[in-house]
């Protein structure tokens, strides 16, 4: 039990340190830097372009679908990379496994394609 609680002590020290460091840095900066505000400095973009309209912009839902597909193939790469590195030790069966994996993903891709996820209209 003691060990278990010790772990929490460690975690809480980390949390406290994590909070303390940025707070300390920012407070310190506030004391060291000069403070001369002008209207231009208050603007969100210093390029001078005035932002207009609501900040709640509606994005097309297709971005979401693309993002999903992207993540899937991204993860695929993450799996394929270590397999490729260790290809020599893993041999034929790992190849078969990977092929099954890719095939399943391919079905998914075809599915998305057929369901017109890849077209933008």
């Amino acid at each position, binding site marked *: *039990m003691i060990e*278990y609680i010790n772990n929490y002590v460690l975690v809480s020290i980390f949390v406290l340190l994590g909070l303390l460091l940025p707070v300390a840095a920012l407070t310190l900066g506030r004391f060291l830097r000069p403070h001369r505000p002008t209207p231009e400095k208050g603007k969100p973009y210093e390029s001078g372009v005035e932002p207009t309209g609501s900040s709640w912009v509606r994005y097309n839902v297709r971005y979401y679908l693309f993002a999903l597909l992207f993540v899937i193939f991204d993860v695929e790469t993450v799996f394929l990379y270590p397999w490729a590195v260790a290809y020599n030790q*893993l041999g034929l*069966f790992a190849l078969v*496994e990977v092929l099954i994996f890719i095939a399943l993903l391919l*079905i998914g891709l*075809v*599915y998305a394609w057929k369901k017109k996820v890849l077209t933008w209209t």
Partner: protein
Amino acid sequence: MDEAVKNVLDWNWGAMAPELVILGAATLMTILDLLLPAGRDRRPLAWLGLAGILVAAFLVWRNVQAEPTHILYDMYRVDDFANAFKLVFLAGAAFALLLAVADVGPGGEASSGEKAIRDRGEYFYLLLTGLLGAMMLASAADLIVLFVGLEVLALSSYILVALRRQYLPAVEGAFKYVVNGGIASAITLYGMSFLYGLTGSTNLLAVGEGLRDAYVSGNAYLVYVAFFFLVVGVAFKIAAAPFHMWAPDVYQGAPTPVTAFLAVVSKAAGFALLLRLLLTAFLGLANPLDGSPLLFSELNVYVGAVAAASMIIGNTVALRQTNVKRMMAYSSIAHAGYLLVPFASLTTMVFSQMMFYLVAYLFMTMGAFAVIQLVARDRGSEDLRAFAGLFRRSPLLALAMTLFLLSLAGLPLTAGFIGKFYLFLSAVGREMYALAAIMVLTSVVSFVYYFAVIRQMFLRTGEEGDPGVRVPPTVGTVIALSAAATVLLGLLPDPALDLLAHTFNFSEMFLPLAE
């Protein structure tokens, strides 16, 4: 080759054959669905799925007679506990599939209009993937596999509920289901993380042993917390109070075959999870002072409270429903409560009690939903009043529905009565009279709403000169099989009881298996 990496072909994949068949069927259905031109009838896919289910059922039945085995380093066990549940899942999914065929067929509710389902391929193969998840859940011997199974089932169900895209209650139900389900999954996962944290293993048997040490070495509090969280997750899955709020909306919004699937397969999977996870992990725990097992003396009180709350809330709130599917949702909440009774009053009978009731529940619920589906599509309404004068229009259908409702209410000569009688036994045997009393008395309350449907069918007159309800052969098969089984299990329960007691060796679940 490294010793640690076992050759893929060395595993006994035959043990997993039923799941592989279902996976294969689902994949094949997906591919065919993609290749078929858009306008083509998708219903042949369902027959393919049904064939897959039958083959899988045969393979599971063959496993029943075989020695229990495990593969993938005891992550996946094929024992009789798993086999029994898989048979229930397969039967439930087959029935749901048959109902789904009629749902999108000519004249079906989902064939046109607001409630139309356009993704018909998905309708069929997602039932199969959901089934796959449930089967994995039943066989899982490892927290990870357990969770993967749970999620496969859950994700398939979410989509299935949302299939009627133009129908607002469906969208509402699906959304509630996703959000609530997500929370429940998170809580389950949190509970599992405690198990892993306390024992350092994800293997259920190892977790069971590790927990015993953790409990006596001063981490009792964490053990309780883990149990608490896991029960929350299970309670969500089986729609037990107080985690039942999603059920009415989901049951109402989902296409009727999917509602039936959720009510039967998903709920049964929840009970598989309950027994597999909680029994293996927590059965060994004993109070260090008097040596009494925790699951019998302390933890069961908590489960008993959930059971009592489900029975009371389900049966009383159902009284006020006018939508039949919502009413059935509350009825299913109440049934979750009944089914928790043997777990709360744990005895060695728990497996056969739950299995018998689940089988009885499978038939009576499937039958009831099949009739509801027909009436709803005939009248275009799921209101209680849609049943008015059904006895005049279609006497056989009305009699079948009466049978299912009487069975759900637990009246004699039906499967539901024998099942409930069996469930009571352990509650009375363990002297948990309060629980038994709640069970019998809330059953009486349930008479009122079940008889409300019966009253509509027999005592109200529909419009004069209505033609009878058209019964498509697939739905007719489901109703006939369910009715026959409900009567048979009620009149001659002996073969089924005998099968559960002697053919299925449920205690294999706790057996450490050699490589």
